[in-house]
Structures are given as structure tokens and as C-alpha cells.
């Protein structure tokens, strides 16, 4: 998701791709690689973990690494994969997209990892995509994103727009009102998301009364609040795709201006348990967020996940949706490898992955042949304990639609990698 800029991503990549000397850059700070689990036997499977451990994105990505390490540790304790222990090679993408591409090359060429778990922002994913495609390697990507992509070298375990944004808009239309004000950070994810929302509102009898974008990281949101007051004098729905620090300023200002959740309920797509802690629950109580998983999901798998995480990292930690997606993608990889009987032949691993199911903390999920997961959609209300009270959840897992059906450019397209004739983008009708 987030920070994604298709154009910027591809420009950065062009710069990298045209320079063969960066390939396999062995000098790229080997000190940064640390073996998370060491096995004395040497009989290990190497996997790569590629996230930002420093820089602005470290805030979010570090906890995703924690979740991945937890899954790897659990698998190793249960006997590993195909009888071998998993050895994680952790690389720091430094919140810098060319570094992501460079580290991806290093993991594939030098460490010869079986697969890579990594990335958070769409920009970093777009930056590593050509690396994984040209070397025909495999990336698992754990974050909800704007869709409009379906690479045969990536498995997307976060939500596609139809598994987060679209159901939440439907829910708001039904329960909270028809008039929407859209607020977002100024880059591709919120803009794409809002394009989808506007099309959806137009199709379903809602109304977009205004939309505004705040530069990433900006904390001056006063004029947005003013516009919301003007456009919705008697209350209405705020759809919030702001990211990072702007959220804090936005909710503080919202409260100070007297726009409470009773008249101005807001739906956020980038606020999870960790962000609630960071923003302060006093400002957020009563507002809504849409995700596939909340820590409060009541199921044995969820309880087990939360307890295992707290036991390993401390009882003050919380888990959130991207962490859950990161946790399950390690297990999905393990299951696919075991079904395929090999971790080296990626074609076999990929084929084995289609139709894999897993009792995830959010419920039973399935990997589809379009490389996205069928997931449950949930809407949570922030309660006074900083956790989400789940007010809506789908009975069944929602099938993923990577190519958006509200946007004219991609309407009628779908993705199916199990059929060589169809591939990443084919016309359904």
C-alpha cells in the first residue's frame, strides 16, 4: 500500500536496471545481515527478510519482521520445513527504494535464498518487482495495497481493495450516512483508493461532498477540518486514508474543533492497533477502521497468535493486520514447499501454493490462483482499551479482485496464473 508511486518506482528502477554493476552488490554492508536463527547442522533452508529497519518506515516494518521471525521460530521448533531448519537472512531496506532493489539482488544472487518475505510501501514493492521478475524469484508481500498489479513472482497476502475499501464503504452507506468527505495523504495509494470510492459512491447512491490531500508527514490540517465543516454542516462520513504523522494531527484537530464521532464518524484504512497507541486512544475512541484482522478477533488461532507474540516480545506489544498477514505468509510458504516436495523449484512451489488453506488468526484463508488471498473483512470501532471492537465481519472469506472493477482502465480484467493462457491480466468478458 502506502507511499506507493508507480511512476517514481519505475524511474528509480530504470536507474538501477540500466547499471549492471549494481548486480549482486557484494559490498552492500554485509554487516547488516544477521542470521536470526542459526542451526549448527548447516542443514538449513535460507529465506530472506527484506524490510526497513531504519528510516521513516522502520516504525511499521520492524513489527512485521517480528511477526515473521515468530513464525519462523515456531516452524523450526516444530521440525522445520522438509526436515530442514529455516535460516532467516535479514536485510535492511533503509526506507529507501533503490536500496530495496539492491538488497533484493543481494539476497537472491549472493545468499541464494529460497524465497523473500518483505516490503511495506508500494514504492518499495514496485522497486523490487523487476528484480524478482528478471531473476524469476519469489516475494511474499504482507500489506494491504491499492491493487492494479498481479505479478507471477509475488504472493500478496494483504488485502486487495475489494477486501478492505469497498466493503467498508458499503457498510458506511448502510449504517452511517450517504455524504462522504475523502481525506488522504498526497500520493498514489490514497488517490487510487479515493478514485475507487468515488466511483463506488456514484454507483450506489452515495455522494462525495469533498476531497482533500495533505502532503505526507504534514501536520497542518486545519484547513481540511474547515472544509469538512463547510461541506458537512450537519455531520457526515469522513473517509480517511491519511498515513503516518498527519493522522495524529488530524484526529487531535478534529476533536478540538468539536467534530466528534457521533456526528462525524470516520473510517480509516491505515490505522491499526499500533497507530491507536501512537495517536492516543482519547482522540480516536468511537472512530472506525477497516482491516482483515484485529487483535480482538475471537478465535483459538487468534488467541494463540497473540499469546505467542506477547510471550516472545513482551506483554505491552500489540499485533495488527499486516503483522498477521506476515505471520501467515511464512506458514503458507512452508505448506506450499511441503506439498511441492522442494523449495528450489519455484514453479512447483507456486503451483502447490494455489488452493493452500491455513487456519489463520483471522479465520480460514485460501490462496487463489491470482496470487492473492481470500480474506475476511472486518470493521472495528476504537474502544477505550485502545483495541478495536468488531462491529461488522463477513461470514465468509471474500475473494480477491486485484484488477479494480470500478476503474475503467481495468474493468473486466482478471488474473489467473494457474492457466498459462490467461496469466497476469486477461479479459474476462
Amino acid at each position, binding site marked *: 500500500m502506502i507511499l506507493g508511486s508507480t511512476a517514481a518506482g519505475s524511474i528509480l528502477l530504470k536507474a538501477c536496471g540500466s547499471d549492471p554493476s549494481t548486480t549482486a552488490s557484494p559490498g552492500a554492508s554485509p554487516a547488516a545481515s544477521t542470521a536470526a536463527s542459526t542451526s549448527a547442522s548447516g542443514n538449513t533452508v535460507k529465506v530472506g527478510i527484506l524490510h526497513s529497519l531504519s528510516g521513516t518506515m522502520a516504525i511499521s516494518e520492524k513489527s512485521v519482521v517480528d511477526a515473521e521471525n515468530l513464525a519462523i521460530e515456531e516452524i523450526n521448533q516444530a521440525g522445520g520445513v522438509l526436515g530442514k531448519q529455516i535460516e532467516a537472512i535479514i536485510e535492511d531496506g533503509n526506507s529507501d527504494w533503490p536500496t530495496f532493489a539492491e538488497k533484493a539482488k543481494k539476497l537472491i544472487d549472493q545468499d541464494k535464498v529460497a524465497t523473500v518475505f518483505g516490503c511495506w510501501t508500494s514504492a518499495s514493492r514496485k522497486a523490487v518487482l523487476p528484480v524478482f521478475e528478471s531473476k524469476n524469484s519469489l516475494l511474499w508481500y504482507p500489506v494491504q495495497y491499492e491493487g492494479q498489479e498481479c505479478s507471477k513472482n509475488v504472493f500478496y497476502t494483504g488485502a486487495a481493495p475489494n477486501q478492505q475499501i469497498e466493503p467498508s464503504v458499503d457498510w458506511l452507506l448502510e449504517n452511517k450516512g450517504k455524504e462522504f468527505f475523502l481525506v488522504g495523504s498526497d500520493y498514489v495509494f490514497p488517490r487510487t483508493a479515493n478514485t475507487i470510492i468515488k466511483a463506488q459512491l456514484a454507483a450506489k447512491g452515495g455522494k462525495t461532498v469533498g476531497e482533500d490531500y495533505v502532503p505526507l508527514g504534514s501536520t497542518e490540517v486545519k484547513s481540511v477540518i474547515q472544509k469538512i465543516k463547510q461541506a458537512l454542516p450537519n455531520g457526515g462520513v469522513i473517509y480517511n486514508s491519511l498515513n503516518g504523522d498527519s493522522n495524529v494531527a488530524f484526529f487531535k484537530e478534529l476533536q478540538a474543533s*468539536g467534530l466528534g464521532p457521533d456526528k462525524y464518524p470516520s473510517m480509516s484504512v491505515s490505522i491499526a492497533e499500533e497507530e491507536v497507541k501512537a495517536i492516543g486512544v482519547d482522540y480516536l475512541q468511537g472512530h472506525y477502521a477497516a482491516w482483515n484482522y484485529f487483535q480482538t478477533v475471537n478465535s483459538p488461532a487468534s488467541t494463540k497468535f497473540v499469546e505467542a507474540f506477547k510471550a516472545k516480545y513482551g506483554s505491552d506489544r500489540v499485533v495488527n493486520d499486516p503483522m498477521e498477514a506476515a505471520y501467515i505468509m511464512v506458514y503458507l510458504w512452508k505448506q506450499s514447499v511441503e506439498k511441492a516436495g522442494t523449495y528450489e523449484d519455484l514453479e512447483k512451489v507456486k503451483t502447490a501454493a494455489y488452493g493452500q488453506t491455513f487456519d489463520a488468526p483471522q479465520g480460514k484463508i485460501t490462496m487463489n490462483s491470482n496470487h492473492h488471498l481470500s480474506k475476511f473483512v472486518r470493521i472495528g470501532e476504537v474502544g477505550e482499551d485502545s483495541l478495536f471492537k468488531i462491529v461488522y465481519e463477513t461470514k465468509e472469506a471474500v475473494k480477491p479482485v486485484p484488477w479494480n472493477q470500478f476503474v475503467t482502465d481495468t474493468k473486466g480484467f482478471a488474473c489467473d496464473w494457474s492457466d498459462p493462457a490467461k496469466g497476469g491480466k486477461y479479459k474476462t468478458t
Partner: protein
Amino acid sequence: MLSGLLDGIFSGISLGSVLLLAALGLAIVFGLMGVINMAHGELMMLGAYTTYMVQNALKGTPLFGIYIFIALIAAFIVTAIFGLVLERGVIRYLYGRPLETLLATWGVSLILQQLVRSVSWQLVTIVALFCLLFFGAMWIVARRTDFERARGWFLAIMIPLSAAAAIATGNVLGTLYKPAFTKLWFDARNVDVTAPKWLRGGFPIAGTQFSYARIFIIVLTIACVVGVYWFLNNTPWGLRIRAVTQNRTMSACLGIPTKKVDALTFALGSGLAGLAGCAVSLLGSVGPNTGQNYIVDTFMVVVVGGVGKLAGSIIAALAIGTANYLIGSNTLVDLTAPIKPLSDTFAFFSTISMAKVLVFALIIAFLQFRPGGLFPQKGRTVDA
């Protein structure tokens, strides 16, 4: 209409006062001393983190209701001391060399950002021990008369020796008192400063609501401006600061201790940055990048206002704040509604991102006509 107008005036002043508070310290450091302090934003960040720590320390005690005042004092003292160390340790060697100052302070800003991400008792112990050993040894050896000749040898031996001793001690203590000693103080995550109850919410007036936090910042800004004016104009040290600003050499000749004045001025500017950091923590969250959001805006204010004049900074901050607000909200669009093309133009610029673009364009245009800013320095003293 009345409530819209009131809101507009209030919001403009409020945006301007945040800018002014953030820029006030820089107006002194950059304006009066000519030091391009890229670490100004990070000093604000330190102030914000101090606020966070005071808040945590007072949670649950009866003082919590007024913790913000204690935090203001603490933030001022912490950042002023830090500024003093920075001036004594780095900047005083670089006076008159703006390019080196720029690079050095930028380096300091990066160090500070990483520091709050990775600071723990272990790190503090290592750094403190290193300083103690190294500077202690230096202090002892420096009294020998042949020190200058042996300086190279001394450095070559003492730096690795002190570092090794400090790191070893740090690691041993780290393993002995494991979680508590190595636990990060803040982490890379943003932390949350929650305003006390009486600062949350707003003051309802004529159908609109003025946020208490904003009113608090406006009052604080006024207090700071008045305080700085009083200090500069009515105290002996203020007189000396003004004298050094106008003509450093002449002041030195007349017996003013210019080095002390420099240190004091820089500490004052840093302390004001700390106050600003405390104030902005009420608006947004506190994180390692907090300062970076403000650094460009603060320089803009000082440059537009005219380097060396506080009055210029005040007017510039209010003007930029109000312009940002008027363009970014729909106010101008509504006002010019009868003239269609004009209102369409304003509608195009009426998002926060685009408002910034237009304000920058206006500033560039303005500086074409008045390169010295609103109140340029007059006379031959400019490059003193």
C-alpha cells in the same frame, strides 16, 4: 458568514503562531548570529521528547493537570543545555564559515534523529564513559608542557582505548541487567503526547469552536515574543547580544566577552526551539522525524522576514500562516465566487499541497523584489 470570518482569522493567526514559535529560536540563531542551524528542527524534537518524558513521569500524580507548564520549563532547560554543548563543541570552531556550519549542523541533526531511535541506558553509559575517560585523560595530559608534540600519539592511543573500555563496560552491564539496561527509551515508533483535559476540546463561539490547544499556543507565542524582546532590550546581556550582532570586532575591542555572548545566544535560540517542540507536540505526534516537518518553514519565515530582525520574522510568520490558510481552505474561493475564472483558479489551489506550492511561488516572487526580506539590515553591519 461571521463564524466563517472569525474562523478564518483565528486559524490564520493560529497557523502563523505555530510558525513563529518554531522560527523564533532560528531568528535568533540564524538572524542574529548568522549560523545556519540545520539541527533546529531536531532541537524542537528534543523539546517534544522532553514533554513526553515529563508527561510520563507525572502521570497519576496530582501535578498531571499542569504538567505542560513543567514540561515547558524542562524542555527549555534541556534544549538550552544541549544547544550550549553544541555551540561549545562544534559551532564555535566554524564561525564565519557558513558552508561548514550547514554541513556540520545537518550531521548533528542526523545524529540526533538516530539517537532518539536507539538511545538506551547502555548507549548512554557507553557515551558517558567514553567522554569521561577520553576528556579526563586529555585534561590530565594537557597540563604537560610537551603535550602539543605528543598530541597525535595521545589521540591514536586514547581514542581506541577509551572506546574499548566504554564499549566493554556497556556490554558487560548490558548482559548483567539485561532487559532494563538495554531497553530502548523511545524506539523508532512515534510516541503520543496527550494534552491534559483542560487543553482538549475547544471554546465555542458564534457557531464555531476555537481549539484550546491552539489558543494555548497563541498565548505561549505572545509570551515568548514579549520575553525575547524584553531580554534583548532591557537586560545587560541583551545589550551585549545586540552589540555583537551589529559589530563583532568593535564589541570585542570594547571588552564584551563575545565568546560568552555567542554561547548564550545559541543556548537561548535552542531553548526557544525546545519550547516550540513542546507546543507542537500538542498538535501532532512526537517522533524522530518531527523536526524535519518544520525546518523548511522556519527558514522560510526568517528569510522572508529579513535576516537579523525579529519584527520581520513575526510579520512574515503571520503572513505566511494566514496565506497558507486562506489559499488552502475554501475562503478565497467563496469570496471570489462572483468572478468565475478567479474562483476557479483558487479552487485549483485550495488543497493543502497546492496551497504550499502557491505560497512558495509568492515567496519567490516577493524575494525577487525585496531580496533582503521585509526588514533588511541597513548600514555596513550586514556581514559583521
